[in-house]
């Protein structure tokens, strides 16, 4: 094989290597479907091609793996988006496989970060990944009938493929879905099902994965039994309904198996029935602490499809809202990390206090505290209010970003950073070295605390971030303590951005929406991958349109979900009490993990 042209260094400015198909002439072709980009790779050569792009072309970071069901062509397609951690646009690889026997080689050996994402594609789309070490369902339970995201799979409350449903609009006859279901509630069973004698298999599969039931002891030492402890799904420190099956040797962790899906609420299936605009409020409920930035990512993806322009003022307002959201999120994350470490609720109270103030601004602007549903394709829903809390909004904002927030961040810093207990519980715990951080596709603060200065706002700039002066925060030890510190750093950078926005905002007039607000958005048949640097990491939306009023495929690359891939690895060898600290430092939200 000849040398590949692009080198990892200085790649930030070069376009993705255009010669991949030249180097693998019989395995790789350009994706020439209109509106599509990237390469189609033959399944049997996938591992080879992936290794080459990683080792020779510098695409060391596999961001997202997902599947698309092209039912009408009888094909399943697996879509990979890879990046260089030195920056630049994506390289999209696609592998097609027949729909009725969908098998694709697993990339876990090349990119360990593909692990959970491949399991998800198996669970929801029924694509088998040959060579995957543990190909089990991840969001639904073992034993569930069917693969729900297949286009011909229908949910129990199925009514029609696309909204708005004829019964509801324009007719307006409402009825309860329960009335149409023979069982009177949200269930369906396969035709040959009998209730009697059903043995659930879900739990056994989980424990088998935990390696818990293996024998231990070598016959010479004292024979010890491994102890299996379930943390969650109802546990005060799992940040929601997350479960970890931990097998312990004494107090030391041998193996940790994350179990999720307890909040899997079928975002993607519902999203593919919805119209484009109807999905906007659903994105609020992904990472429900950061609804503004979720909106932003989705708006960007659809704007890519629409080729819409966003007016200047709307861009400024978007950036302001998103950065305030980042501050909220990191405040919350730090408060709850401290909760998990045992400083129960006092630091969180201070953190929540600042968040409440920002939420008030959101409420005055968007109409809701948490579920803002604020951005639209081509702008934002409403301008900032003139008046807020008995004064001008702009005065409030000036005070907020120039005085109040910097002070609050300094307060946290003063009281927490050098606290003896925090230092001894956090330093050197859960260390994630940079190579592993990249290999496991971690994103956001977790990645940057391990010494990889990768921030989508700088690496692949979107919106108007390239106009602002800010630094990509980075820390180098990769332990819980650095993951705490980096959140302080990032808040300070966000404050810097907000200060610049607030400085310029009064001079920027004009519209906040390009064109009229459309309820029925139609986009040409094409695909788009929109990504933003969410407070928890890179949030990506992969949207495929077939020209109709509803997205054909709507997938979310959820940072909380993918960051968890490395959790087991991080916890190995630590004491069981450290698990909650490590988990808290990753900062997950279950709405996004499980979707």
């Amino acid at each position, binding site marked *: 094989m000849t040398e590949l042209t692009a080198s990892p260094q200085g790649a930030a400015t070069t376009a993705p290597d255009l010669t991949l198909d030249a180097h693998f002439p019989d395995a790789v072709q350009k994706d020439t479907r209109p509106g599509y980009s990237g390469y189609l790779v033959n399944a049997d050569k996938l591992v080879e091609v992936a290794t080459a792009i990683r080792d020779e072309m510098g695409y060391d970071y596999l961001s997202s793996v997902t599947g698309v069901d092209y039912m009408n062509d009888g094909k399943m397609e697996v879509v990979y988006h890879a990046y260089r951690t030195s920056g630049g646009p994506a390289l999209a690889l696609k592998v097609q496989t027949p729909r009725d026997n969908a098998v694709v080689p697993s990339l876990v050996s090349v990119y360990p970060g593909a692990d959970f994402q491949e399991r998800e594609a198996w669970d929801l789309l029924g694509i088998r990944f040959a060579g995957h070490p543990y190909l089990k369902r991840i969001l639904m339970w073992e034993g569930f009938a069917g693969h*729900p995201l297949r286009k011909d799979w229908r949910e129990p409350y199925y009514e029609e493929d696309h909204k708005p449903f004829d019964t509801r609009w324009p007719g307006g006859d409402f009825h309860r879905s329960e009335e149409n279901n023979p069982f009177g509630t949200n269930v369906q069973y396969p035709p040959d099902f009998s209730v009697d004698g059903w043995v659930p298999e879900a739990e056994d599969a989980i424990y088998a994965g935990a390696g818990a039931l293996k024998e231990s002891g070598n016959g010479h030492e004292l024979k010890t039994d491994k102890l299996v402890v379930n943390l969650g799904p109802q546990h005060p420190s799992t940040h929601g309904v997350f479960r970890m099956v931990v097998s312990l040797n004494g107090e030391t962790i041998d193996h940790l198996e994350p179990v999720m899906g307890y909040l899997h609420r079928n975002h993607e299936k519902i999203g593919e029935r919805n119209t484009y605009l109807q999905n906007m409020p659903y994105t609020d409920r992904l990472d429900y*602490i950061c609804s503004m930035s979720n909106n932003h990512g989705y708006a960007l993806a659809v704007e890519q499809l629409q080729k819409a322009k966003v007016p200047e003022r709307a861009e400024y307002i978007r950036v302001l809202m998103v950065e305030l959201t980042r501050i909220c999120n990191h405040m919350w994350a730090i408060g709850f990390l401290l909760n998990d470490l045992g400083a129960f609720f006092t630091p969180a109270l201070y953190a929540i206090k600042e968040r409440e103030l920002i939420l008030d601004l959101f409420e005055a602007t968007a109409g809701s505290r948490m579920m803002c549903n604020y951005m639209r394709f081509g702008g934002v829903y409403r301008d900032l209010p003139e008046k807020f809390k008995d004064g001008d909004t702009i005065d409030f904002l000036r005070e907020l970003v120039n005085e109040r927030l910097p002070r609050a961040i300094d307060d946290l810093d003063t009281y927490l950073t050098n606290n003896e207990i925090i230092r001894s519980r956090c330093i050197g715990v859960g260390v994630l070295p940079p190579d592993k951080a990249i290999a496991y596709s971690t994103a956001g603060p977790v990645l940057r605390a391990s010494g990889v200065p990768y921030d989508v706002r700088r690496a692949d700039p979107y919106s108007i971030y390239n106009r602002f002066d800010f630094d990509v925060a980075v820390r180098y030890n990769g332990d819980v303590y650095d993951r705490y510190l980096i959140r302080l750093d990032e808040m300070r950078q966000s404050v810097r951005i907000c200060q610049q926005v607030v400085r310029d905002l009064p001079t920027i007039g004009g519209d906040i929406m390009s064109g009229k607000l459309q309820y029925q958005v139609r986009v040409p048949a094409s695909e788009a991958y929109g990504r933003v640097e969410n407070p928890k990491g890179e949030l990506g939306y992969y949207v495929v349109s077939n020209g109709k009023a509803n997205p054909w495929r709507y997938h979310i690359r959820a940072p909380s979900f993918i960051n968890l891939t490395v959790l087991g690895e991080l916890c190995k060898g630590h004491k069981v009490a450290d698990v909650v600290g490590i988990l808290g430092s990753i900062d997950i939200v279950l709405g996004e993990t499980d979707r």
Partner: protein
Amino acid sequence: MSATDELLNPDFPVPDELQSNIAITTIDKIYNWSRRSSMWPMMFGLACCAIEMICTAASRYDLSRFGMEVMRPSPRQSDLMIVSGTVTKKMVPQIVRLYNQMPEPKYVLSMGACATGGGPFKEGYNVVSGVDKYVPVDVYVPGCPPTPQALLFGLIAVQKKIDQQSILTVPWYQRGPSEAIPVPILGPDIIDPRQSDVIRVQAAKLATAATAVAELSGAAEA
């Protein structure tokens, strides 16, 4: 009305000189008054609504003004289950188990549209159409998410409900143990053991319908 006023309510005259030494009340009143003033919710968040629940507990809205700040992570120590978020099929066995583990008297507050009826995610294949399909609910709080004020209002409604109960009629002082709710099973879809009969009947119907269709299409082909 202050708490002492409430206690003194039962129209039994206390001589003036004893007013400051004696309080006369009914068992019901004092029993309910103490229970309603120390409701301990279970620390148990399901989804987005849980964030608003945490905000309600924080300093701005301050749940402790109503005697509810002691959130217990263990069901054994709690009186009130706030179902704060989407109830999924995968989670509902655990919720039922937690409910069964709570000692009586126990109350359930369904917070938000999801817990009440499935909410925005109702049509989802993994979503239960309301937690009341499985456990009895005392108070529903609408909203998506309900604001902290709304949640407080709901909690006060639970207190009002407690005020109306009488020790003579409450179920947990009747003879015999109270029945546990059978825990749902994760089958090809969620199985509620109480619904087994319905499932059997309907499954048989669907099976005959399916064979009929198969025969029809077979006949059409032939």
